[in-house]
Each structure stands twice: as structure tokens, then as C-alpha cells.
């Protein structure tokens, strides 16, 4: 187990290194006006001096080396346009708690609802719940989230008679962003839960259990659910970690001062250093999430031998 985690960690580090290099090189192609707070008023000479001062005229490998040194100190650089000369780490530290709070509650709501709906759908295939759930999943999967978020905001705020935007002092303004966050993930969990549960319930050992008279509820919760939930468990750490990244769309729709909205803001203001820092933060989170997912899955299902799996790769 420890050997596996060590190997897996190493792999993640290699991937991470490659990703940072790729993103860094890609971002060298960003429009240069994104490095200066007031580009329009500057002469070409000033621009050149400014770029040199930031080390942007050095060869790319040198820049990369400096950037890694900076990263190891836990420094993501300073913002240029969004908040001039303000440390990006501090900006993130201010924003992240909002995203985490919304994300955690949404994940907390959607996992039980999604898994429950999935089991309900699988238990009576072709029944009322299954039909209802299928329509719901199709809509969530097919229609762009951008669209139903918008209508939810439009009609939800009217129905509840609350303000359009999030207000930290009014708890009721949290309801709609939370529903928005939960709707697609409930569908997502339900879809996978249904699929795995149907597969599981067709297996021979379930037939045997039924034949020897084990009550339906026991079969479903002790056997089918326990086995079907394993592959889904793998998704949970990632979705928890990604709450830190926030939902770009929901946060900017409701003006929640979180990380997702921040991403849109810095793009609109063309703040290159911030775009770079945020992309790297999001990538790191995903990698750590996938790593934790694999480890977590091994803990839930004792049959999965990770060392063997690692060799099989």
C-alpha cells in the first residue's frame, strides 16, 4: 500500500511538472498588455523596460527556473491589473473560503440525493422514478448549464422574492446558488449510481441471495449498494477539492466573491500573472483529487489491490 502511494505520488509529481511547464510556455503567448496596469499610456521603451524588469525577456528556460523557485517558496507572484502589486496568494486566501463553503454544502446535498435517486431508479427499472430520473438526467446532461442556471436565477429569485445577487448577510440568498450547484451533480451521481447498481443487481450472487430468501431491502443495501458505490467513491475527493476552484458560472451569476468568479474577472481584465497562477492552482487541485480518489477507493473496497493494479499498468 505504501509502495503504491509512493509510486502514485511520483507519477502525480511528474504530471504536475509537465503541466506547469506546458501551461507556463502557453502563457508566454499571452497578449503583453496583460502585464501592465495601464498599457495604453506607455511608450514602447517603457514596455520593454517593464518586461525586462519582470524577467519576461529572458530565455524561457530561465523564466521557468525562476518561476519554479518562486513556486517552491509558496509565492504565486503578484497581480498586475486586478489589484495592482498585490500578492496573488493573499487574493486567493480571501476568495477561497466562499467557494469552499458553497461547494462543500452543495456536495453534501448532492451525494445523498444523487445516490438515493440512482438506487430508486435501479430498483424499479422502467418504473415511475426511473422515467422521471431519466428525463431529469437527460436535461441536465444535454442542456448547457449556462442556460438552466440563468432560468433558475430568473424565476427562482422571483418566486422566493429575494435579491438577484448573493448577499453574505442574508442566508436565503445562498439557496439558489446551492440548488444551481447541486442540480447537475445530483444528476451525475444518479446516472452512475443507476448504471452500476443495475449491473450489480444482475450478477449471480444477487440471484443466489434472492433465491435463498434474503429480504429485498437487505440485498439492496448490504450487497448492491455497497458494491455499486465503490467506483463512485473515487469521484468524491476530486469533487470536494474542486469546490475550492468554485463554479465559474454560478459564482459570477450571483456575484459570489469566490475563486470561480475571480477567474472570469481576471480574464476580462487580462491580468496575465493571475490567469497563470489560477490555472496552475486548478491543475494542482485536480491532480491531488485524482490521487486521493484512487487511494480512497482502495480503502472502501478491500478487494482492490492497488499494487497489483499499478503493475498491470
Amino acid at each position, binding site marked *: 500500500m505504501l509502495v503504491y502511494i509512493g509510486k502514485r505520488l511520483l507519477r502525480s509529481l511528474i*504530471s504536475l511538472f509537465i503541466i506547469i511547464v506546458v501551461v507556463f510556455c*502557453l502563457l508566454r503567448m499571452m497578449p503583453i498588455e496583460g502585464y501592465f496596469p495601464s498599457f495604453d499610456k506607455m511608450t514602447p521603451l517603457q514596455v520593454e523596460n517593464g518586461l525586462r524588469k519582470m524577467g519576461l525577456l529572458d530565455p524561457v528556460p530561465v523564466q521557468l527556473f525562476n518561476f519554479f523557485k518562486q513556486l517552491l517558496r509558496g509565492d504565486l507572484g503578484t497581480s498586475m491589473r486586478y489589484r495592482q502589486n498585490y500578492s496573488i496568494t493573499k487574493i486567493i486566501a480571501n476568495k477561497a473560503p466562499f467557494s469552499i463553503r458553497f461547494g462543500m454544502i452543495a456536495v453534501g446535498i448532492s451525494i445523498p440525493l444523487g445516490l438515493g435517486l440512482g438506487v430508486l431508479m435501479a430498483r424499479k427499472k422502467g418504473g415511475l422514478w426511473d422515467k422521471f430520473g431519466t428525463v431529469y438526467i437527460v436535461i441536465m446532461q*444535454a442542456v448547457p448549464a449556462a442556460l438552466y442556471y440563468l432560468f433558475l436565477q430568473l424565476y427562482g429569485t422571483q418566486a422566493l422574492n429575494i435579491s438577484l445577487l448573493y448577499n453574505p448577510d442574508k442566508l436565503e440568498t445562498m439557496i439558489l446558488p446551492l440548488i444551481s450547484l447541486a442540480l447537475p451533480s445530483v444528476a451525475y451521481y444518479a446516472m452512475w449510481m443507476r448504471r452500476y447498481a443495475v449491473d450489480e443487481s444482475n450478477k449471480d450472487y444477487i440471484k443466489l441471495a434472492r433465491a435463498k430468501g434474503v429480504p429485498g431491502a437487505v440485498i439492496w443495501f448490504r450487497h448492491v449498494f455497497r458494491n455499486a458505490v465503490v467506483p463512485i467513491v473515487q469521484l468524491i475527493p476530486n469533487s470536494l477539492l474542486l469546490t475550492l476552484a468554485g463554479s465559474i*458560472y454560478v459564482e459570477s451569476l450571483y456575484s459570489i466573491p469566490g475563486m470561480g468568479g475571480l477567474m472570469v474577472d481576471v480574464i476580462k481584465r487580462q491580468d496575465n500573472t493571475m490567469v497563470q497562477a489560477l*490555472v496552475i492552482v486548478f491543475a494542482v487541485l485536480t491532480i491531488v483529487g485524482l490521487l486521493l480518489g484512487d487511494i480512497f477507493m482502495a480503502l472502501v473496497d478491500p478487494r482492490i489491490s492497488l499494487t497489483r493494479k499499478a503493475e498491470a499498468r
Partner: protein
Amino acid sequence: MSKYSHAQKKVEAAADGALSALERYKIIITTGAGAIAPDDLSAEQAAAVPVELFSPAVHDAAEAERTASNDYSYWRSTLRMFMKNPVAVISMATVLLIVLFTLVQPILPGQMDANKINNNPETGLQIINRRPDGVFWFGTNSIGQDLWARIWSGTRTSLFIGLTVAVLQALIGITMGMLWGYVRKLDFLFTEIYNVLNNIPTTILLILASYIMRPSVRTIIIAMSLTSWIVLARFIRNLVMIIRDQDFNLASRCLGSGLRKVILRNLLPQMVSVIMLRMALSIPDAIGMEVFLTYIGLGVPVETPSLGNLINSGRILMMSPSLRYQLIFPAVVLSIITICFYLIGNAFADAADPKNHQ
């Protein structure tokens, strides 16, 4: 079974002398029941068969080795399965109608130009925010452009983006997937590319690509094709690796199937369902992404109407109920298109899977 017993009955009738010898012979030969039939003939009957009816068969070594394959047609079975699903057929018809209509709409009589600002002929003022009526079927927008024309023009743009991304993704994905699966030396390289692309959230990559390039239809297509092929390539790679060593493929190759037949009959049918599913689902994805990119300001320029642009301008006006039609019309059209493609994709994936063919 029924064919055989019918043939046998005819052979028996022939043996009873109810038919002429020639007819009898023809029946025996054509029904393939010759092996049993001669024994049923009595000695005189057999002697009565004219000798000139027989000619020696030419021995052909290649012909003798040739094995028969059944008349199972993959595409016909797929089509039949697909047609059995009423939801899929309705979705398909809807999509075809919409695609056809967006193509012919500009040349229909009485259509307005999507970018023309309509002025009132009497006052010379722009006809802004006119609610749907007989002239402007879907009303006009905040600068007096005809929403009906803009929606169909926008649907054209969005469908173009979606279809192009789907085709590009399939082409790149299949080629790369085949290479990945067949050329073992490339496996490490491709796996590393996969890890990198899979580890950065797609939205972030898209945003990054659109941020670096200038906003245009081309940018969106490139940005989306950049990442989406890898998932398909990985599917293809896994399938190639699984199928090429499977017994049925081995057997088929031993029995003399050429490379063409191996690829077309053994490999491709197993992959078609995955390829079509990915292609069909990437269309609603691409359309949705376009809406998203437009929302964060990295979408298609406003002069090119697209469903994303229309929804975004509708969103700005949505707080006044009387102008809400400007959001609802494009939203409904977009939802119909994306849901239909999603349903078609899933139904086709089921129908195209050879395991579901009887």
C-alpha cells in the same frame, strides 16, 4: 428449419414420380438436398435420369478453401435497431428538419438580414424591442435587428461549430487512437499527453486557449478540438488492444480475412458505437461551451450571431418581463437542438453495439 423441410417435401414428391426426371433433378440440385435424395430413388428411377444432365465440376483449390460468411449486415442491423426507438427517430427527424431549415432559411422569400437594423419607414427611428408580431415573428432586439433571422443565423453558426468539432475530433481521435494502439513505442508519449490533458479541467484549457487566441468561430473550434480528441483516442486505443488479440479476430484472420475485412468487419463495428456516441455528444457540448465562452467574454464577436451571443444579449434584458422573449426564443431553440443530439447519440450507441443485434 422450415426451408429445409419444405425442400425435403419437394424431394419426396420428386421421388414419388409426380414430377418429371429433369424437374426432379433440378429440385435435388437447387435445394441442396442431393446428398439424401439419390438414396430415396429406386433403381429404375435412378437409371432413368439422363446422363447428359451431368457435367464434371472444375476443381478450384482457392474456391474449395473459401469459407462462407453469413449475410449479416452491420449497418442494416444498426439502422433497424435505431428505427425501433421512437424517441430516437423523432429526435433525428427534428434535427434533420432544423438543419435543413437553417440552410434554406436565407433564400426563402420575405426573410430579413440577420445584421440589418430595421428602421420605421415613417419616423426613420429604429424599431427596437418590438414584441413578436406578423412582421417580426420573434420580435426585434435592442438595436432593431430581426430576432427570427438572427436565431436561424445563430443556429447555423452554432451547428457549424458543433459539427466541425465533432468531425475534427473523430478524425484526430481515430488516427491517434489507432497509432496509440498499434505502435507500442508511442504508448508512453500518448499516455503522458493523456495525463496532462486529463489533469487540467477542460474549461480551464478552453479559457486559456481562447484567451491566447483572438475570439472568433475558428478560435472556439480550435480550442475545443485541442482537448476533446484525447478521450476518443484513448477509447480507440483500448479497443484496438482488446480486439486485435481476441479469439474471434484471430479465428477470422486464420480463415483468411484480409486487413480490409479485419478493420471493416471486426474492428470498426466494435468502435462505431463509441465513435458515434462521442461525436453526437460533442455537438451539444460544443454548443454549450460556445454559450459559456460568450458569457465570460471570450466568445464569437457580436457581428456573427450565434446562439451564445443571442442568449447573452437576452440575459442582459431578462429582468424586464416584457423583453424576456429575447432570452426565451434562443434558449428554446438551443435546448431542442442539444437534447435531440444527446438522445440521438445515446440511441445510436445502443443500436450500433453489435452485442445488441440479434
